[in-house]
């Protein structure tokens, strides 16, 4: 048997073992019980004072729900994810969801390395000026839109925009606990990564992505942040700023005003349900989002907005007739488009196997094989 196997020094595992244990929330005592090792032994392993065998490492990986390669990761800085695990715990987010998100981000990084993918230019950081006011949100949104070359146009696909021009990794996972909407983390090695609740509609997810982008550029020193439903209606200045930024980023003031004057020349008195639906479709946002945007731009009063929202039901015939419901509720893919491109390109270049491709895409091997077979795209033996 060949001796040319990867055999790293076991001393390197300590920090990552501790990181994996704390991220899943186990105490030394709990792990001791599951592994049959003394607490002092695990403590020595974590501090790098005791050698860990492959048998022990494998058992750790099972308990901590991590692939074995996690413990061999040379990029040991997990500061941002350590923060995320803590805030996710406070927000009652499933630990497994955050671990899955972390693994997806690691896989993205591995694919970039494997494919020698170009490193994206840096993401702007405005955290030094601590922006928090509504006016600052409007200004910053305009600056960002300008830098992204959007002018007054609606953002047709915020995923492509932020992944393509900012290099942000945006993943979807279903999360039903804790009213989770989205999260961001800015990791030294993995870059800016967003997790969005796949159970939400496209329009809602679009707003959540813009909201997380606000945190990413304005509150980056937090390193990680979790948003629940409550955060979107909170009086917390950071959340109010992120909401205002998201609204201005997705629905620029000038364009809203121009469009509204076309649709509703007499303005506030004639802003009807169908006007809101038309605007929501144009900007790719929800009926609620455009309603509150008109309030913030003083186009309608709060009372009018509440009345319009009460009137609107998403299954209404008008919404259906105007095309509001089209393509809004299909489940998004777990992985971003560029990630999928890199994975497929790696497979086509025979850098990874088909089984690995399916794993990276978080798809069932047999289902993916069937899809490839049906379209005659299988790579030859």
């Amino acid at each position, binding site marked *: 048997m060949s001796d040319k*196997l990867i055999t790293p020094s076991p001393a390197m595992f300590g920090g990552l073992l501790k990181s994996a244990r704390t991220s899943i929330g186990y105490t030394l005592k709990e792990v001791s019980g599951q592994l049959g090792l003394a607490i002092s032994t695990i403590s020595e392993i974590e501090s790098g004072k005791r050698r860990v065998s492959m048998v022990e490492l494998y058992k750790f990986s099972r308990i901590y729900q991590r692939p074995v390669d996690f413990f061999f990761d040379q990029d040991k800085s997990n500061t941002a994810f350590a923060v995320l695990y803590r805030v996710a715990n406070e927000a009652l987010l499933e630990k497994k969801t955050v671990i899955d998100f972390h693994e997806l981000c690691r896989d993205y990084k591995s694919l970039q390395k494997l494919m020698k993918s170009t490193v994206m230019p840096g993401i702007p950081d405005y955290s030094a000026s601590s922006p928090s006011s509504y006016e600052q949100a409007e200004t910053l949104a305009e600056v960002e839109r300008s830098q992204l070359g959007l002018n007054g146009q609606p953002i047709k696909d915020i995923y492509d925009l932020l992944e393509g021009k900012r290099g942000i990794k945006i993943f979807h996972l279903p999360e039903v606990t804790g009213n989770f909407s989205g999260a961001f983390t800015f990791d030294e090695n993995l870059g800016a990564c967003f997790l969005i609740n796949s159970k939400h509609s496209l329009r809602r997810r679009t707003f959540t992505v813009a909201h997380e982008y606000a945190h990413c550029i304005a509150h980056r020193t937090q390193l990680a942040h979790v948003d629940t439903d409550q955060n979107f209606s909170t009086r917390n200045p950071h959340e109010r700023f992120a909401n205002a930024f998201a609204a201005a980023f997705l629905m620029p003031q000038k364009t809203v005003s121009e469009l509204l004057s076309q649709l509703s020349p007499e303005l506030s008195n004639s802003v009807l349900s169908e006007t809101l639906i038309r605007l929501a479709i144009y900007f790719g946002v929800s009926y609620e989002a455009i309603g509150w945007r008109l309030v913030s731009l003083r186009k309608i009063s709060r009372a009018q907005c509440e009345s319009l929202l009460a009137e609107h039901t998403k299954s209404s015939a008008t919404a259906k007739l105007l095309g509001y419901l089209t393509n809004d509720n299909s489940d998004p893919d777990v992985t971003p488009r560029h990630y999928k491109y890199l994975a497929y390109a790696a497979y086509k270049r025979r850098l990874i*196997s088909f089984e690995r491709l399916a794993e990276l895409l978080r798809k069932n091997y*047999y289902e993916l094989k069937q899809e490839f077979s049906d379209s005659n795209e299988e790579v030859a033996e």
Partner: protein
Amino acid sequence: MSPFLRSVVIDNDVISRLYRAGALRKVLELWRAGTFYVVKHVIEEGKRWPSEGYRLGLVLDDLINVSIFTIVTIDDTSEKELEIYAHMVLLGKFGKGESESIAIACHRGYDLASDDGAAKDECRRISSAVSTFTTRKILEMAVNDGLLTQNEIDSISSKMK
């Protein structure tokens, strides 16, 4: 008589191709019971197939019940087997099922049935004693041993495409 001199760990690729051709049991039952080992992960992945998992699961359970397949898992007490497994995972090229299959084959002295060229190459690199077989090679062996006719093989092969 079995042309397989040793037990064979069979991976997703081979199971998938033969199943799609409707020939999983027909081909594998030609050889003596106990010839083929399948890692648990591969069986579970087959059963998780959203559209066909239930039916494939029935076929796999049937093959296990009549000892055509034997479920096998990584030996979590073996330093060497786990070392090979970790090596496979760290390469980042292979899936979990392939990594386990290769670790088991290389460590226990079994052979490997896989259609993935890189997996077969890596397996031979780790242990030159391991023989590897593709689905087509298995079918050719069945013809050479007179277990299936060329017409039957042609029919199966056409459905595998």
